Every structure is written in C-alpha cells, then in structure tokens.
C-alpha cells in the first residue's frame, strides 16, 4: 500500500519532466497516466533531459482543477495571464510573461497549431476531455531534438492528448463521460481505444458540447458611505455554443523508434456575447468555426549516434463572422486558411555528452476571404535550427540558432481586379542559450539561466486586412533573460513525500511591438504600426509538496506567485498627467497567484483551488478611471470512484467560484458567478 501511495504522490506530482522520470519507480504502476512513460523511455537509451524543465499539469492534478478548457487549467501556471471574455464559448487567450499572446506557440501532440490570420490560438476551444498533459516552457522547450518550429516562439505550451494504454489481457478500452451543470451544459464524450498488436494501437474520441451559456451577472456601485447607488442583475445572453470534436490517432512503436498519425476535426457555432454597456444588454453576433488537421510523426534511431524525427501536417480552418443586427453594419465575413507543414530533425551524438541537432521545416500558409479587395496572401516559411547540447558533470548547456526565411506573396486589388502583385522576403537569425548547474551532487538543486531573442511575424490581419493592415510592418521582437533556481526532494519514507520549489527572475523587452494606432478622421479608423515598446521585469515562484498522512490519506498542495512590472515605453513624450509612458500595460496585474490542494483517501478525492489576480488597469494610462479591481475565485470538487458490476465508474461534483464573486477579467465582459458541474465517467 505504501508503495502505491508513493506512486500516487509521484503521479499527482506530475511536475517532473517525463524523460527525466525514473522508469523503474513507475514500473509497477497501476493503470494510470504515468504508465505510458515507460513506453517512451523504453526505446531511448540516453534521453537528454531538458536543461530547464517545464511547468507541467497532468493526470490527477489536471483532473482536479475543475477546468473545462485548456485555458482554465493554464491559469495555474506561474507567469501566465489569461484574457477571458467569459462563458463556455468565450474567447480565452494566453499571454506568457506579458509579451503578448502572439508570441506564444501552442503545440498539439508535438506539432504547432497555426493561425496565420491573426496569430491567436483560442485555448477556450480545446477541451480537456482528451488532454493528458499540459506543459509550459518559458523561452522554448530546452531539448534540442525537435522541429525547427519549436525554437520559434518566445514561450510554448505543449498539449499532449491521451495515449492508449491497456491493462494486461485487454485489447479494448471504452470510456463514456457525461458532464452537465450550469450554463445549460450538456457535454457527452466517448473514447474507444483498441490494441491491434503489441506495437500498434488506435484511439478514437468524440465530444459534443452544448451550452446555452446563460448566467446571471451583477454590476453595482456604491456611494463612498456604503449605500447602494445602483445594483443591476441580468442574464448573459448570446453565449450559446454547439461544438463537435472528433479525433482519431494511431500510435506505433518500433525497435528504437515510434510513430503516430492523427486527424482532428472541430465544428462549432457560437454566439458572441459582446461588451455590456449602458442600454445594451445583449448582442446578436455569431461565429462559426471549422478546423481540420491531419498530422503524423515518425521518430527513429538509425544508428547508435544518429536519430531522425520527421513530421508533417495539413490544416484547414474556416471561420465565419456574422452580424445580423440590422441597427448596425451588416457583416458576413468568411475566411479560409490552409497550412502545409513538413519537418525533419536530425540528432547526431558527437560524444557521450555532446549532441548536435539540425532541424529544417517548411511551412505554407494561404488565406482566402470574402472581404472586398482582399489581398489573398500566401506565405512560404523556411525554418532551420542548428542546436547543440552539452553536459559536463553537473553542468548542462544548450545553444541554438534559428534561421527564418519568410516569403509573402499577395495582391493589391481595386474593384476586384488585380492592380499589383507583391513579393516580399525576409531573413532573420535568432539565438537562444540555456544553462543549468547543480552545485552539489547530493542535493537536487539546480541554478538555471537562459537568454533568447525571437520575433513573431506580423499576421495576415496585421499586414493585409482591408483598410487596417499595413504591409510595411516589420517583425515584433521579444528578448528574454531569465535566472532562477529549482530544488526538489523525494522521500520514500516519512511524512513529507515530495517537495519542489522554484524561483525565477526575468527581464523581457518587446520592441517593434505591433499595435493599432488611430489614423485619419473618425474613431473607427486604425492602422497597425511597429511602434510599441514594453519592458517586463518579473518574478515567478512555485512551490509544491506532498504529504503522507496516517490513515492512507495523501495530501498535496501547490502555490504559485507572479510579480510583474510590465511597463509601456512606447511614447516618452506621453509622460504628463495620465500619460502612458512607463505605465503598467493593459490587464497585467502586478501580483497574481494560485493555490491548489488535493486530498485523497481510498476512492475519494477532494480538490480545492484558488486563483488570484491583483489590481490592473485596462490601459497603460494608470489613472483611477482605468482601474480594474482584483479578482479571485475559489473552486471545490469531490470525486468518488466505484465499481458497478464490471464497470469502473467515477462521479465528480464541482462548485466553481464558491463565493459567487462578480468580476470582469476584461472590462465590461462579466464572468460567471457560482456555478456547478456534475461529471460521470464510466470505463468498460
């Protein structure tokens, strides 16, 4: 039993990077998420551990966070801010260390999700139903054997879907889940896993989400003496969503290698609940999304020294935005995006502790739209990364140089006919260096540092959106310096079974930041310009510990805290009363943090989680009129596992925003108050 508890602790811990994980200790594990790791580590003889490990959420810990979408879960990482417009279908984007959400790369089963149109990945769209692990890396995944694209973001989130695992003697797993609760939620999902052979397995997963998206929200203001001035409660309208997700993947293992192929389809229709302003309590705008992609990866050790990773992807995205409100401008815009992607990564071991990698990627993007006089842009991107990793005793280092070549082709049109064809090229080199050092062999304490300079390309919208785009935009650069340390300790005996502490201080500069500035007459006319500059100084702290209490009780908890000073250096002349110069940028709190607590006893699990976001301003003019209140929510959940005949069942009840706090993350977008969810899972 003790053994099992230790494993439980490790499973729940889930912050240890997978390759560094000692396969032995997981060897006798029961059917849980860690078992897969065994498969991963089987073929690799010398897995090169990342220089700076990720922040990871997986398994039990991820399940315990009362999260519907990936965005909800990511809030528990330090250094991350979510822009959340509220509700089940509301847009949720992630900003790491205040560099802007466009600098963030999101990877789905190892291949980046692209959006050449606006660079935004709406993480609210990705449900946790099929996600097994979320990892977050500042800078980049500090492992050299990866596609060139993985070197190309200022921060990365890796989403790993559940991979099939089978109990001895079983060749089929069927899982049926039903979630229901507030917002009129009906969210069934089903997953079938099949083992063709010891080497090849299949996973099929379907999920349907329906929600009315309605919830009560309340705004009120008081006089300074505490008397209520006005107090309004209303129902959030037009937040309904219908979404279907289908996913299928095949996984294979070979001697010294593995492969997988997957297809993903997402189809949704949703209302866009707009800003709540005086006299306007509902909106009519709607959005349709259809995303499809198919991707495959093949990894093989060719010789003792040479290893190959090849991957490819095709993606097609459709988006329609419709405004049927006849008192406003009628809009019915449709966009189609295509992406083709191929990558080859080659790792060669020069010496026992010295690896080099050369990765070359090619990517093709095309955007089509119903906009008048649209530019129909095509982008060819070639990425090449040369990277090396070296280990000398307790010092680990890694350096990489990324070459990016971008070729945009687009047209200027007038009256629908082509006036001019354009062809633009861009070549850039960007470096990154990661170092970590363990001063004492007997303590698992690591000092780590990294430097990275990277840029993000202007998106197709930035460049070519009819009227607002600016084809002369340059890339937007982010430069990062990070210094930190991490300590971890595991105990097989005693009360304290594990502890992990980390602290990082960082300094980031974003230059040539692409922002919209007013042009010409009238309020609705903007132009994208490379004029922004932001300096970010921050501290991220994280602590986790697990306790073994008497009576088979396991208790573990985590705390994160982030301090950020993200200052707007765009316009030095704007330093007068109410000016923006050196002001904290929009929606970045100085203080934010989270706390999680998980208790397990036999078949019962209890979770508590707390999120805190401190005071902010909604523009870099930090005056009273622009002040936004802090917000914090408490979530609770309890789950119980039991068997009915041969079925393994689990029932979970959740209460979110326990104290019914009425808050906005984004000004005038009210968030839900107290809400509930009931989940029933059945495994056959």
């Amino acid at each position, binding site marked *: 039993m003790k053994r099992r508890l230790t494993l439980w602790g490790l499973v729940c811990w889930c912050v240890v990077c997978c390759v560094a994980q000692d396969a032995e200790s997981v060897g006798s594990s029961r059917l849980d998420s860690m078992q897969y790791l065994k498969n991963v580590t089987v073929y690799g003889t010398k897995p090169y551990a990342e220089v700076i490990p990720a922040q990871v959420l997986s398994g039990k810990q991820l399940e315990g966070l009362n999260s519907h979408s990936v965005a909800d879960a990511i809030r528990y990482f330090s250094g991350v801010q979510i822009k959340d417009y509220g509700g089940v279908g509301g847009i949720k984007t992630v900003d790491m260390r205040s560099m802007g959400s466009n600098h963030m790369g999101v990877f789905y089963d190892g291949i980046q999700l692209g959006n050449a149109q606006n660079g935004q990945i709406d993480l609210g769209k990705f449900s946790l139903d099929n996600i097994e692990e979320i990892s977050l890396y500042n800078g980049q995944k500090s492992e050299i054997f990866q596609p060139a694209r993985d070197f190309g973001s200022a921060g990365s989130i890796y989403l790993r879907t559940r991979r099939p695992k089978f109990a001895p003697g079983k060749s089929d797993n069927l899982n049926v889940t039903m979630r229901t609760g507030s917002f009129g939620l009906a969210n069934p999902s089903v997953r079938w896993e099949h083992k063709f052979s010891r080497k090849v397995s299949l996973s099929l997963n379907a999920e349907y989400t329906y929600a009315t998206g309605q919830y009560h929200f309340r*705004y*009120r*203001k*008081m*006089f*300074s003496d*505490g008397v209520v*001035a*006005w107090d*309004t409660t209303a129902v959030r309208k037009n937040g309904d969503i219908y979404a279907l997700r289908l996913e299928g993947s095949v996984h294979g293992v070979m001697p010294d290698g593995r492969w997988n192929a997957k297809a993903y389809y997402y189809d949704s229709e949703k209302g866009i609940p*707009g*800003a709540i*302003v*005086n*006299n*306007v309590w509902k909106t009519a705008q709607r959005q349709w999304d259809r995303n499809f992609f198919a991707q495959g990866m093949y990894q093989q050790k060719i010789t003792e020294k040479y290893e190959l990773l090849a991957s490819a992807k095709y993606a097609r995205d459709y988006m329609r935005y419709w405004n049927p409100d*006849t*008192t*406003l*401008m*009628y809009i019915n815009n449709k966009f189609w995006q295509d992406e083709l992607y191929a990558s080859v990564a080659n790792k060669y071991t020069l010496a026992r502790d010295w690896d080099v990698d050369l990765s070359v990627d090619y990517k093709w993007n095309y955007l089509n739209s119903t906009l*008048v*006089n649209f530019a129909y842009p095509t982008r060819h991107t070639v990425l090449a990364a040369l990277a090396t990793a070296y280990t000398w005793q307790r010092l680990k280092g890694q350096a990489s140089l990324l070459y990016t070549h971008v070729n945009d082709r687009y047209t200027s049109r007038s009256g629908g006919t082509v006036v001019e064809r354009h062809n633009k090229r861009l070549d850039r080199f960007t470096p990154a260096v990661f170092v970590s050092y363990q001063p004492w062999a007997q303590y698992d304490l690591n000092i780590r540092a990294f430097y990275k300079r990277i840029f993000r390309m202007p998106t197709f919208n930035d460049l070519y959106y009819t009227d607002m785009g600016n084809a*002369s935009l340059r890339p937007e650069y982010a430069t990062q310096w990070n210094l930190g340390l991490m300590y971890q300790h595991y105990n097989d005996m005693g009360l304290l079974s594990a502890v992990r*502490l980390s602290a990082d201080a960082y300094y980031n500069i974003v230059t040539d930041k692409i922002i919209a500035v*007013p*042009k*010409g*007459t*009238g*309020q*609705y006319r903007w132009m994208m310009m490379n004029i922004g500059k932001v300096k970010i100084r921050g501290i991220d*702290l994280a*602590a986790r510990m697990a306790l073994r209490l008497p009576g088979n009780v396991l208790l573990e908890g985590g*705390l994160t*805290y982030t*301090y950020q000073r993200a200052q707007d250096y765009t316009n030095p002349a*704007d330093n*007068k*009363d*109410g*000016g*923006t110069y050196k002001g904290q940028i929009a929606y970045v709190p100085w*203080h934010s*943090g989270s706390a999680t607590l998980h208790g397990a006893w036999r078949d019962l699990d209890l979770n508590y989680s707390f999120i805190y976001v*401190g*005071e902010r301003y909604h523009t*870099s*003019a930090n*005056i*009273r*009129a622009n002040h936004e*209140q*802090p*917000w*914090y929510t408490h979530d609770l959940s309890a789950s119980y596992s039991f068997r009915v005949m041969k079925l393994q069942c689990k029932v979970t009840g959740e209460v979110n925003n326990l104290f019914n*706090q009425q*808050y906005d993350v984004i*000004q*005038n977008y009210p968030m839900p108050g107290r809400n509930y969810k009931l989940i029933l899972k059945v495994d056959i």
Partner: protein
Amino acid sequence: MRTIHKICAVLLAMLVLAGCREEDVIFVPEVVEIAQPEFNDVQGMYVLNEGNMGSNKATLDYYNFSTGRYTRNVFGFANPSVPKEMGDVGNDLGIYGSKLYAVINCSNKVDVMDKMTVKKIGQIDIPNCRYIKFYGGYAYVTSYAGPVEIREDYEQRGFVAKIDTTTLQVVDTCVVGFQPDELDIVNGKIYVANSGGYMVPNYENTLSVIDIATFKEEERIPIAINLQGCRADSHGTLWVSSRGDYYENSSMLYAYDTRHHRLLKAFDTRVSSMWLDGDSLYVIGVQFSYVTMKNEVTYAIINTATLEQVADNFITDGTERDITIPYAVAVHPITKDIYVTDGKDYVSPGWLFCYSAEGKLKWSVRTGDIPGHFAFLGKNINDF
C-alpha cells in the same frame, strides 16, 4: 519543513498585501484649476468624451469659466442611480432650452439632462443615433438604423427622428440616404449629410433635403462621396465636408448655396471637425498618408463671406506639435478663444488645449477618452 511554511506564509502575505476586492464606488469628479476666472455671458462649457467602442466610457466634463475650474466626469456623480453610467461612444452634444442632450451612439439613446445640474431628465431610445440639431421645439436626430432590404447587396438606409423636446417622444421619422451623419437647418429645410459608411466601397454622395413642415424627404443633392459634416452659415451657405474614401479621394470641404441650389466652391482641405463662429469656419483635419505613413494635420480658418481660406494654421506658437490626433474644435462665442482636443491613441485619456484668438496656447488639461464634442452654457448663445 519550516522553510516551506515560511515560504507559504510569505506568499500568502504577498497576496494579502496585494489587496482584496473593494466595492466599486461612484466616481467622484476630479476638479482641476486651470485658468483665471472669466466673467461674461458664457458661464461654462461641456465636453463630451466619446470613449472607445465597447469601453462604455462616454463621459461628460465641464469647464466653469467663472471659476477657471475643469471638472472631469460629472455625469456619474450627478446621476448615481443610472446603471453603467453614460454609455458607449458619445457622438454629439447640444443644449436647447433648459436641457442638455447627449447622443450616445453605441448605447442607442439620447440622454436628456438639466443643463445646469446635469441630472438626467429622460432618455430617447434611437438605435445607432449619430447627430442632433434643434428647431422650433423639436430635436432632430440622425440614425444609421433605418429600414433594411436584405438582398444580394444588403441595403440599410438611415433616418432622421423628430423629437418633441417637451415630451421627449419621437413623433415622426423620415427615411433618408445611407448612414446619415451631421445635419443642419436652413430656411425651413433640414439638410442631412449621407455618408454610406457601411457600403464601402460604394459610398453615398448626397445631401438629403427634408421639408420641416411636411417632414418628408424632398430631394437629394449630389456633393461628394462619404459626407460627414454639415453646417449652415448666415448667408444661406451650407458647409459640407466629405471624408473621401481614404485612398485616392481625399477628405474635402464644399460650400453649397442653398438659395441658388449650386455648389459655390470646393476646398482641398482635410476635415475631421469644424466649428462655425460668425463668418469664421474653423476646420481641423487629419489625413493618413500612405506615403509618409503618418497622419497629416490641418488647422484652418475659412471666411464664409468671402469663401477664402484666411488662416492655414490658426495655432501660431508652434504648440500644435503637442497634439497627436486633433479631434474636435470649438470657439468661445465671446472671447473667441479656440479649443482643440487631442484624441491621442483613442484608448488613453485625451487632452483639451485652449488657444487665444491669436493662436497662442493658454492652457491644456487632461479630459476623458476621445474628447469630441462641445456645448457652451450661457445667456443668449443657445437660442436658434
């Protein structure tokens, strides 16, 4: 173990120090002393700040000439029981009789207030309302939200609403062209500048003429594409501005003779905002140049009697360099001081600059977001 406890304690302490949520309190107006008091028939000036779309930050500021004090954000405090304050995108402001009218575009309403106390008397719901003018006991408000014809080329005409200023009810409406903006009244007729701003690139190019007596559209006068401004002077001339198409066709200013039904003159002048004071038409303009990738600005005065541009830059001391986006202009009816607002980046607070009649900077003050519209309060100045 003890260390962990300490760290936890420090983290918790940090959270507590960082602060808890407080009750949202009614915004107490901010008062700034900016100039020496002036005593004449003009006692004050209201400034309507538009606020960026979706921000619900339309606010009203007030400058009291007799105290030299500028007060920011007076509406919320004067009307503490109005949920979500003034609303989203203030688009026009006017005083008629004892009442102050604020047209709030994206809140689909006209707020009617007591002109002295700013206390809200009532509200007139008009979807997508734009500009207001008064005549003979009625207020006339343009709106983009006219009847809709859903065809292949979706069409949506605008209208002018006629409002009884005693009952605050819409008594009649008159359908005009596409997306009507400013309007003015000359000799028993309402002239409406139709923009067609939703029809890009097929802009409107006409003025609608409504007979006040019958409240029917009588004719359409072609002037230029994408009309915006419309001001009548004392000579029966209508000053009409066009926004252009932002590409080949620049923003222009036109003088139209309503008595002889002819175009008198076209001025190659950019127009964002204009203010008529006697025979002087003050024009400020911003035009984005795709050559320099910058906004180019205009501060001109046109004599409406001679039809000549008499000043190319009415700011004479070089202080216009402090203005990022000149957004609106107004002129004091007595002292002839000139007020120019700066819209900045549309999301941070704007500024109000006061220049003497000679064009020398007198003072400047921070306003709400996108200060865009003025109304002077005093004796004998709002009577039409």
